């Protein structure tokens, strides 16, 4: 017996980590690169050679990295009929492993959640840096800070990096870390897939960041064809990144959905399930049909670029409209993938900080389901001005305007919960107020854009840019900051220092209003999107925007410093500093590896707040003086 317990595993599995992943990825990448350059046909008659070399190198890097980090160990062992033992699984879950477990293929959902949080912060940092480059160039009408092709690249890369960051920013950290504990589970349904979804993104990010060094991209983040076919080699990096990212999202989506549907604790019927779970499932639920469209659009783009296919070449039987449809079939549901998790995180926050139950839980669910269901029916409102199907403009205007009804229901739930609450104004709650304001503006400007004639004036102008920043950043990212402030004690065991985080947040919000107010202004005046230089008419609006951007930057730096400092040195947090009732607050800090020693049994919903006062007593009468 003692021999068994002390036997050291001879397998490779325990030697694999991010470092070996990078090493093997580079090895495979360089090898394939060498072979491709040597053996692929090149010359004037083979114009696709460059793209073929780059694409094969990138795919080889990604595959090599995934092998090197240990992603295939599980399936490989299963194939070899030496399935992972209990010790192996505990080792994979990071039992007793200290910080090293964050740098390898760890299956513990809490580790994956932290990995996603750090990845999100890195992506937001890179995307934000690019935003500062953009706003610096636009501070003057004919600035020579960076040249125009670099500007176009930065605009496109800022967009796709932020889109990826905002897609993962709530479901990644909190959907992984918090959701399983919130439903009383010990981990997610597919722990190895969980780690896989993270490390796929880790493999994809260097590919995307290589784009500027390969000539950049000449398109926006929407990578419209056929401009994407013409674009420099950086476009191949974009294409491969998206293909990998789509796999990662599909895997994560399957995991979250299965976990929520099958692993809720005993007694947690659907009417006792926290609203955050509904939003997370709905968001990945709509991502599952939508992201494959994005993947397909990029595969076709890659084939056009690297094999001379003509999916998007109208001179050869293809059409740019094919791309636009595939893209927006993803692109519109995708904004709800970004928005919903942030909103439902706030819907968890608002009852706790109003000490009042969630107003009309059923209306909240109806709102989420309505938004998700309708989101797949509205995509061509991005194509009103494309001329693709003018007769479909009216039906798409109909579906787009209808989606305002379930969205409005969510607003009702927010203000209904706040109504006669006992409002505890801390940073998570301040984020709720900020999001209500920003989402009002984002939503109403969206209503203008949904109107076809108005869109003909506003499409492709900076007005649209301001609208989607108000929704994705003002509501989405701000909601994520609120969620981070709320769940910080659970993720890190410490309290976020609000003496600095709250002023930083408010500075960012102030800068945000100024930046995008300036953008609405120049959009109305007639400035197109994605321009590196502009008419002198737009000079003042742009100066205002740039000043706002620098303010956001300043606030963001303070926020970053505060998060890092609080993480390392902040006050140790009690298990439930907010007095919340969802299950994740019932586990102690530090959280045991399998969350619950005894699986919990749930007897009610987590919104049992409320102290009745005279207005709640129903049919009684009161005596009033007249």
């Amino acid at each position, binding site marked *: 017996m003692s021999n068994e317990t002390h036997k050291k595993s001879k397998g490779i599995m325990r030697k694999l980590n991010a470092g070996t992943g990078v090493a093997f990825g580079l090895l495979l990448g360089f090898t394939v690169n060498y072979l491709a350059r040597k053996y692929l046909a090149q010359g004037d008659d083979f114009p696709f050679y460059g793209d073929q070399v780059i694409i094969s190198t990138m795919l080889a890097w990604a595959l090599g990295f995934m092998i090197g980090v240990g992603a295939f160990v599980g399936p490989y062992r299963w194939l070899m009929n030496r399935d992972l033992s209990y010790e192996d699984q505990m080792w994979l879950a990071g039992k007793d492993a200290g910080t090293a477990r964050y740098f390898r293929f760890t299956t513990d959902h809490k580790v994956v959640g932290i990995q996603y949080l750090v990845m999100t912060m890195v992506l937001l940092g890179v995307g934000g840096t690019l935003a500062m480059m953009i706003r610096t160039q636009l501070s003057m009408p004919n600035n020579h800070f960076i040249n125009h092709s670099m500007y176009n690249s930065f605009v496109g890369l800022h967009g796709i990096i932020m889109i990826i960051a905002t897609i993962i920013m709530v479901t990644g950290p909190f959907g992984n870390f918090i959701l399983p504990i919130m439903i009383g589970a010990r981990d997610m349904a597919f722990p190895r897939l969980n780690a896989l979804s993270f490390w796929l993104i880790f493999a994809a990010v260097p590919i995307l960041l290589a784009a500027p060094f390969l000539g950049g991209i000449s398109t926006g983040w929407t990578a419209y064809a056929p401009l994407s076919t013409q674009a420099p080699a950086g476009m191949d990096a974009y294409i491969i990144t998206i293909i990998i990212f789509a796999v990662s999202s599909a895997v994560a989506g399957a995991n979250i959905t299965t976990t929520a549907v099958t692993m809720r604790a005993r007694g947690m019927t659907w009417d006792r399930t926290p609203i955050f779970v509904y939003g997370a499932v709905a968001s990945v639920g709509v991502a599952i049909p939508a992201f494959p469209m994005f993947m397909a659009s990029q595969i076709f783009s890659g084939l056009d670029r690297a094999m001379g296919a003509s999916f998007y070449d109208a001179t050869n039987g293809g059409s740019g409209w094919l791309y636009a449809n595939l893209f927006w079939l993803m692109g519109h549901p995708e904004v709800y993938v970004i928005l919903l998790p942030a909103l439902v995180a706030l819907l968890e926050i608002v009852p706790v900080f109003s*000490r009042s139950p969630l107003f009309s839980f059923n209306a909240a669910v109806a709102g989420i389901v309505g938004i998700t269901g309708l989101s797949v029916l509205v995509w061509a409102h991005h194509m009103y*001005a494309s001329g693709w199907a003018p007769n479909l403009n009216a039906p798409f205007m109909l579906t787009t305007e209808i989606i305002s009804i379930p969205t409005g229901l969510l607003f009702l739930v927010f203000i209904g919960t706040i109504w006669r609450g006992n409002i505890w104004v801390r940073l998570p709650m301040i984020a709720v107020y900020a999001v209500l304001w920003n989402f009002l503006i984002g939503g109403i400007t969206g209503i203008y854009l949904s109107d076809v004639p108005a869109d003909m004036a506003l499409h492709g102008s900076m007005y649209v840019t301001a609208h989607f920043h108000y929704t994705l950043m003002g509501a989405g990212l701000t909601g994520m900051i609120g969620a981070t402030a709320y769940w910080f004690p659970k993720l890190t065991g410490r309290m976020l220092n609000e003496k600095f985080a709250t002023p930083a947040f408010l500075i960012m919000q102030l800068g945000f209003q100024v930046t995008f107010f300036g953008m609405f202004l120049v959009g109305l005046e007639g400035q197109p999107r994605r321009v590196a230089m502009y008419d002198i008419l737009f000079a003042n609006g742009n100066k205002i925007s740039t000043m706002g951007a620098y303010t956001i930057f300043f606030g963001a730096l303070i926020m970053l410093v505060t998060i890092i400092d609080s993480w390392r040195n902040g006050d140790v947090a009690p298990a439930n500093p907010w007095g919340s009732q969802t299950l994740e607050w019932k586990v102690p800090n530090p959280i045991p590896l399998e969350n619950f020693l005894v699986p919990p049994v749930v007897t009610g919903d987590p919104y049992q707040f409320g102290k009745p006062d005279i207005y709640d007593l129903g049919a009684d009468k009161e005596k009033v*003086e007249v």
Partner: protein
Amino acid sequence: MSTKERKLGSVGEFIRRPYVRHIFIIWIFVTIAIGLFAPVQSSLMGNSASLEMDVVKETMTIFTFWSAPVAGLVISVALYSLFGWRSQGETAPTEDGSPMRSNSKVVVGWLVGSSILCVMLLVWGLAAMSESHNGSDPAKIHTVNVVGNQWVWNFDYKDDGNFSTPVLYLPIDEPVMFNISSVDVIHSFWIVEMGVKMDANPHETTHMRVTPTELGIFNIRCAELCGLNHSAMFTKVHVVSKSDYKVWVDSMKGSAQ
């Protein structure tokens, strides 16, 4: 001193609660403020140069008016809560707020209200769209072919002559149909002050109609990123009197030999 009995939870009692009155007052202020703001966006869009732009500006204004009460409601409740329902201090509240879980009258009322608003938006939008399709005499419509190149617009007049120009000239008060195409990537033909826009797609022809209503020189900008010099893809439209237009057409026909 006489007293009166009032049923708790009734509408009459509800509107007499102090916080309801306060929220109502804030709501009035905010709704009026947004209403006053309503025409601002239209005025920032500059002088309208076409019938179509008139519709756009009206739409922006009226949609803002219609959204004002709803936005006002959210803002007034949120604002009031920060003062009237606030728990003092940084530490956790010692007491809970209201235990209200739902109010079916409110939910139904909100759904009905937002649906009515939605229908109003739709009807307005459909009416606006059909206005721009209102036919006038087809014989009087000028036709101009618009070609988008990377990174120059050119205009082919086939109707009123047979020549091509880099700058557009149009007669006032007469509808124009543009047949728009591209020779390379997707561009977007945008006459800014006329509030009309249509993409130029390679090997497809799209159509856009406009009726200029103001004399002057207006901006044409490309509204779809089309590569390196997208920001420079910019030209002008001159809207001139019908007689000046004839003079211009004749001079272009003459020099096109």
